[in-house]
């Protein structure tokens, strides 16, 4: 089993517009370190494929939080163009781990591939995760987003998932905390700072980011303590995927549709 005391942070800084995310994950790393976690910081030149693979092999962390550019089938790290780290065909090293990728679009194909490769849980986004900064900010996208009036709302919402994991929350609870944090920031822009020039744009981006967060789980066969860590459902004898698995309630919706269909057919038959 992977080492439950270790978290890996992957945070490149030389890819296009990556400075903000680099510093954002520094906040998440510091939060975890202050809580006593063994935080493995794969930043700057360490945010490359071979370093990350070696780090996973050598340290075997249970948790990984990666920031960087991505698309449906890959996640990338340092450099411009950025160096590819994980792809749908090369993500086996993530098996038995809990993964969060703050990146674009990976929930479409890479996330499912990561679960297929044996990861316990994955969270990521199925659209292009977006943010804005104050155009007058002299640091632009190279600085700490927590010091930018607008960018803090997007990055703090995204980081909330990892603050929750660091607090010891189950992964599905952490996903919900992040969703709730996006909504808190939406409320902030509506109720507390509606006069800021880009407040409405922030609301749209926060809502789009929030509603594109997808969580996938792989609970089968887990023993009880790890079952709870992942946020799966422990029945007393076995570990099941949480009711809201896949982040969109797909299974409950299918069940509801099936039930409605059965009731409809039964009602129709009785009427005849």
């Amino acid at each position, binding site marked *: 089993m992977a080492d439950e005391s270790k978290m890996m942070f992957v945070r490149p800084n030389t890819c*296009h517009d990556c400075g903000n995310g680099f510093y954002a994950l520094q906040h998440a790393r510091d939060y975890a370190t202050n809580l006593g976690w063994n935080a493995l910081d794969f930043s700057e030149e360490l945010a490359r494929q071979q370093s990350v693979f070696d780090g996973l092999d050598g340290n075997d962390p249970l948790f990984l939080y990666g920031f960087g550019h*991505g698309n449906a089938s890959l996640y990338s790290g340092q450099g411009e163009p950025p160096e590819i780290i994980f792809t749908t065909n090369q993500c086996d090293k993530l098996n038995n781990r809990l993964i969060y990728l703050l990146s674009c679009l990976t929930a479409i194909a890479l996330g499912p591939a990561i679960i297929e490769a044996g990861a316990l849980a994955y969270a990521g986004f199925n659209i292009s*995760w*977006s943010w804005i900064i*104050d155009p007058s900010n002299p640091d632009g*996208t190279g600085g700490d987003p927590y010091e930018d009036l607008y960018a803090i709302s997007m990055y703090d919402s995204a980081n909330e998932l990892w603050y929750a994991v660091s607090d010891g929350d189950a992964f599905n609870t952490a996903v919900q905390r992040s969703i709730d944090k996006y909504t808190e920031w939406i409320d902030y822009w509506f109720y507390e700072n509606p006069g800021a020039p*880009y407040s*409405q744009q922030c609301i749209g981006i926060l809502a*789009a980011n929030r509603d594109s967060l997808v969580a996938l789980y792989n609970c089968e066969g887990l023993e009880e303590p790890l079952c709870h860590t992942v946020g799966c459902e422990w029945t007393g004898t076995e570990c099941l995927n949480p009711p809201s698995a896949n982040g969109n309630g797909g299974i409950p919706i299918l069940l509801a549709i099936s039930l409605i269909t059965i009731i409809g057919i039964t009602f129709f038959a009785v009427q005849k």
Partner: protein
Amino acid sequence: METFSSEKKQHLIERIEQRIAQGQMAPVHTLGGRSYTTDQLIDEIKRGTSAGDDLLYQEKKLEDELNRLRQRG
């Protein structure tokens, strides 16, 4: 992601153009590795690119959230 009728798309574009005219749209950055100035935002939408679709989606989400918040009072 949602797809929009041509009427709905036009409505969302007009809202974006209105906010650009009022100086209420900042350049957008994405973790897909692209950034868009306000001029490029409209261009991407009109060309029907995936980036344009993302921007329309954000605008629709803004509309939904404003409705939710106004109903709450």
